[in-house]
């Protein structure tokens, strides 16, 4: 039998199974404005959490360990004979709690300002930093247990003993889960008649036997080991961080090829199964430190596997001066071919030079890779709270504007800027204080039981990664709503101060009525047609740069070297554009109350008549926060441009954005008619994938409100 055809058939079967599982998940669990995660639906009468607190939730190392181990002990097995690997993510354990923060550690002193400025504070949030899979691949579960034993002997004490015991219990329960799959495989092998399927299951069993205690030695074993770790980590608290997948797998692949264990077709089949298991954030390519690129043959095979699977995928290609042009070209080819929002692109130049401004070396900066939604991380080396803490700058503006209107004798943009920056400073400090509170008590709330295992420090020191266990604390605070604020300043400057078409009081009156008073709609269009952020050299651009610069300085100012706390600014809203917008009344840029704020660092939709892609690429490059975190460019690429004949042009726009200082590009290529039809009847397009922000999701899985947001974004661009 032609094995290439055989593998393709297996992959098709897996895709069909996934489509069915996604449908089933929507039917049982409803719509979800989040990533697909490759998770399958929870079985009927499934596992329930074991609360250890009167509020019905569970807290602390004992609570988390008891729950996780119990879940692992009772977790269903999942084996598909079409798959090369065992296991699927089912339970979202952290989401099953009724409450995510231990009430014994209140933050009442922060609540007033958190609400005033609509801050997403992140207290009690988890994961959002990267493990180092290489550590796991080197040690295996047995090696990790040994490391725990050795470290426990050095760090003695009551708290440490509990800490080490918890991690040991977690690993043993994961091993038990794997072991049940091995047992299940034995039964399946007896029943299956097709010789090729039988051989596959035999190999699957051997693979799992080999890695139950020992480190992986082959490509199949390495992939399966990573899958078990991230399935456990996903189950524990949704962690979805990946790593530099090509260099992680390269030695196993090359060794297998050298020893004649696999051929390339088999490798592609394994990689396809690996990718369909979970849309983890993986990076491909990147600088090697010697003027070259880390990519190798397996980087291309990973892209080929993605081409075959073509589901929800979060692969990022690192773009730099000495990148592998062929890899870049191939990634563009697939982006255009599938129009399925993968891959994404990250810009090395801005990221590295920015991160070095925090006082880090170039060598370390190179290791900070694209492994999350909007974020970069040093695998195994840092704790970050990436993408968890957001300051709603549009809300801060609203507070400042109201203060000017009630207490300032002279009303001017200068006065408003003074009030805005003063409130922004308070908001940023509130956000930073929230992070500090989190760092102080998170170990009593939710220790990072699984991610600690693949971090450098927690096991060695006997301290949770959130509690001094990590090497670096590069703590992220993102600003959201930059375009709303910039355009509001610009509209006031242009229409009130320069053209004198209306007064401050007129504006206030229209805002209070949500533009529904006499002449309200006319004034709204006047404000909306002011010089907006994104037009290039417009008033809005000037204000956006000022805001970005000021926000970055405020966040950096919260850093405390003595406490090993380095705060890093970003501009990102994640999928919170709807929620954050609901908290903000009508704004002077002509936005009505409750409407969504702008997406990440993107200008507001409709900011230019044509040439939107170039305007977007230029504008976002100019507001980069500049310290190694991102202000992503969310690019709704017109399908008329997204043709193979224009691949070079698309590539040039990507490279130029990065050359200008950009950090991350997320691309959507969506046909307007298709997206409108899918919005009306999502069931017609079960495979339609959209990149919401940094993550992708099945369009059919989004709520109607969220689908509308995606539709508006695409139509208006």
């Amino acid at each position, binding site marked *: 039998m032609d094995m290439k055809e055989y593998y393709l058939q297996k992959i098709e079967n897996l895709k069909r199974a996934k489509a069915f599982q996604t449908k089933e998940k929507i039917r049982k669990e409803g719509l979800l404005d989040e990533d697909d995660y490759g998770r399958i639906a929870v079985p009927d009468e499934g596992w329930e959490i074991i609360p250890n607190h009167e509020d019905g939730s569970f807290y602390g190392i004992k609570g988390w360990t008891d729950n996780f181990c119990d879940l692992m002990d009772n977790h269903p097995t999942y084996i598909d004979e079409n798959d090369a690997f065992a296991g699927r993510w089912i339970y979202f354990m952290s989401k099953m709690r009724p409450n995510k923060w231990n009430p014994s550690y209140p933050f009442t002193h922060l609540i007033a300002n958190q609400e005033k400025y609509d801050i997403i504070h992140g207290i009690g949030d988890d994961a959002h930093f990267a493990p180092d899979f290489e550590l796991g691949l080197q040690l295996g579960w047995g090696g990790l247990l040994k490391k725990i034993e050795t470290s426990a002997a050095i760090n003695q004490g009551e708290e440490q003993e509990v800490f080490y015991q918890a991690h040991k219990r977690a690993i043993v329960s994961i091993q038990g889960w794997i072991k049940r799959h091995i047992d299940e495989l034995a039964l399946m092998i007896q029943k299956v008649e097709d010789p090729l399927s039988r051989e596959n299951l035999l190999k699957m069993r051997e693979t799992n036997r080999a890695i139950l205690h020992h480190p992986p030695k082959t490509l199949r074993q390495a992939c399966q080991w990573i899958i078990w770790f991230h399935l456990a980590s996903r189950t524990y608290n949704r962690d979805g961080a990946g790593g530099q997948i090509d260099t992680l797998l390269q030695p196993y692949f090359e060794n297998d090829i050298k020893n004649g264990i696999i051929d390339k077709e088999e490798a592609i089949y394994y990689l396809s199964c690996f990718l369909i298991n979970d849309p983890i954030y993986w990076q491909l390519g990147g600088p090697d430190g010697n003027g070259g690129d880390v990519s190798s043959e397996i980087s291309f095979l990973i892209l080929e596997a993605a081409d075959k699977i073509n589901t929800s995928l979060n692969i990022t290609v690192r773009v730099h001066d000495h990148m592998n042009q062929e890899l870049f070209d191939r990634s563009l080819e697939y982006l255009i071919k599938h129009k399925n929002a993968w891959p994404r692109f990250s810009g090395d130049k801005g990221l590295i030079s920015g991160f070095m401004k925090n006082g880090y070396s170039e060598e370390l900066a190179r290791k900070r890779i694209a492994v999350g939604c909007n974020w970069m991380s040093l695998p195994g080396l840092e704790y970050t709270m990436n993408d968890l803490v957001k300051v709603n700058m549009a809300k801060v503006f609203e507070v400042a504007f109201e203060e000017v209107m009630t207490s300032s004798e002279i009303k001017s943009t200068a006065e408003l800027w003074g009030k805005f920056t003063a409130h922004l400073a308070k908001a940023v400090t509130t956000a930073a204080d929230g992070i500090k509170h989190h760092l102080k008590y998170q170990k009593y709330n939710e220790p990072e039981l699984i991610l600690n295992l693949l971090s450098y420090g927690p096991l060695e020191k006997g301290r949770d990664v959130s509690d001094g266990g990590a090497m670096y604390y590069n703590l992220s605070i993102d600003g959201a709503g930059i375009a709303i604020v910039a355009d509001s300043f610009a509209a006031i400057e242009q229409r009130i101060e320069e053209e004198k078409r209306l007064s401050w009081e007129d504006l206030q009156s229209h805002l209070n009525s949500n533009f529904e008073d006499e*002449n309200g*709609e*006319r*004034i709204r*269009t*006047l404000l909306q*047609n002011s010089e907006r952020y994104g037009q*290039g*050299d417009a008033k809005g651009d000037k204000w956006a740069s000022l805001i970005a610069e000021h926000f970055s300085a405020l966040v950096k100012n919260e850093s405390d070297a003595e406490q090993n706390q380095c705060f890093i600014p970003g501009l990102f809203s994640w999928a919170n554009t709807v929620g954050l917008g609901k908290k903000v009344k009508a704004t002077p840029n002509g936005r009505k109350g409750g409407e969504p704020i702008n997406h990440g660092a993107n200008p507001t939709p409709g900011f*230019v008549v*044509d*040439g*939107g*892609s*170039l*305007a977007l*690429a*230029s504008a976002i490059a100019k507001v980069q926060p500049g310290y190694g975190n991102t202000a992503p460019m969310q690019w709704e690429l017109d399908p008329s*441009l997204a043709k193979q004949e*224009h691949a*070079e*042009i698309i590539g*040039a*726009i990507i*490279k*130029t954005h990065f*050359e*200008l200082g950009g950090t991350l590009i997320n691309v959507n290529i969506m046909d307007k008619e298709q997206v409108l039809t899918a919005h009306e009847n999502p069931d017609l397009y079960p495979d339609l994938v959209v990149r919401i922000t940094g993550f992708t999701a099945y369009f059919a899985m989004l709520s109607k409100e969220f689908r509308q947001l995606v539709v508006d974004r695409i139509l208006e661009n």
Partner: protein
Amino acid sequence: MVLEKGMITNLQRLSLHDGHGIRTVIFLKGCNMRCLWCHNPETFSQKAQIERIEQKCISCGACVEVCGSEALSMHNGKVHYNVNLCKHNGDCTKVCYSGAMHQVGEIYSSEALYKAIEKDIPFFNSTGGGVTFSGGEPLLQHQFLLETIQYFKSKDLNVVVESNFNVSWNIISKFLPYVDHWLVDLKFINAEKHKKWTFTDNQKVLSNIKQLDNEKVSYELRTPLIPTANNIKEELLAINDFVHQLSNCKQFKLNPYHKLGEQKYKNLGLEYNLAHINEMSHSEFQYWSNLIKK
């Protein structure tokens, strides 16, 4: 020296079909042909004029109040525009905040034009692109255009000019040292048909193309393929013969007829005479394209 100023209708960024790489196309106002299929009717007149974009109107009536010529009126809560009464003084555009009443045509100096396109230079540089002057017929504003192109060349920009070549050779020849590439329209060989569909003769056009060919500069020819006008075998073969007698034409291609400009005629209160003609299918276009390749 008095610096020239030009009348511009639009700057179109990220253009991929009017020269190599990413380009900004600068549309100069005014044309000396009246091609019935033209999708840029706003460039016919050299003067600024008013267009009404009905979809943007919020029916506030502010434009009606300031209109001194009764071109704008309010009926049943909706604004109506009679272009024949319009004096094009632009008063309505100043009070129209939604952008429904819009003035087409803006005066630019060379420097202002450069400032407007400057932001895309990084993208020109990374793709070998630049600026394309189109219209209308850009060479009608030849003094301004020459000054602008010289200025742009001093900034190292790649410059393409798209022209119908219905101007004197003396004008064209002044541009030869500065233009990197020419895009020239070749609509008909048959003089009668040229006259019927464009309201101008084609002798000057054909003669200028031959002259250009002799100059050995970089240029290409483009024929808009218009159903019922020149999608006729003998006409296309005649065009093809003409092209094959040239020595230095870099490329010759057909451009398919489209109706994207139809709405613009409505906005300007003009009649679109080809409303009854459908766009041709891809396969038909391919057929004609193959014909000229032989």
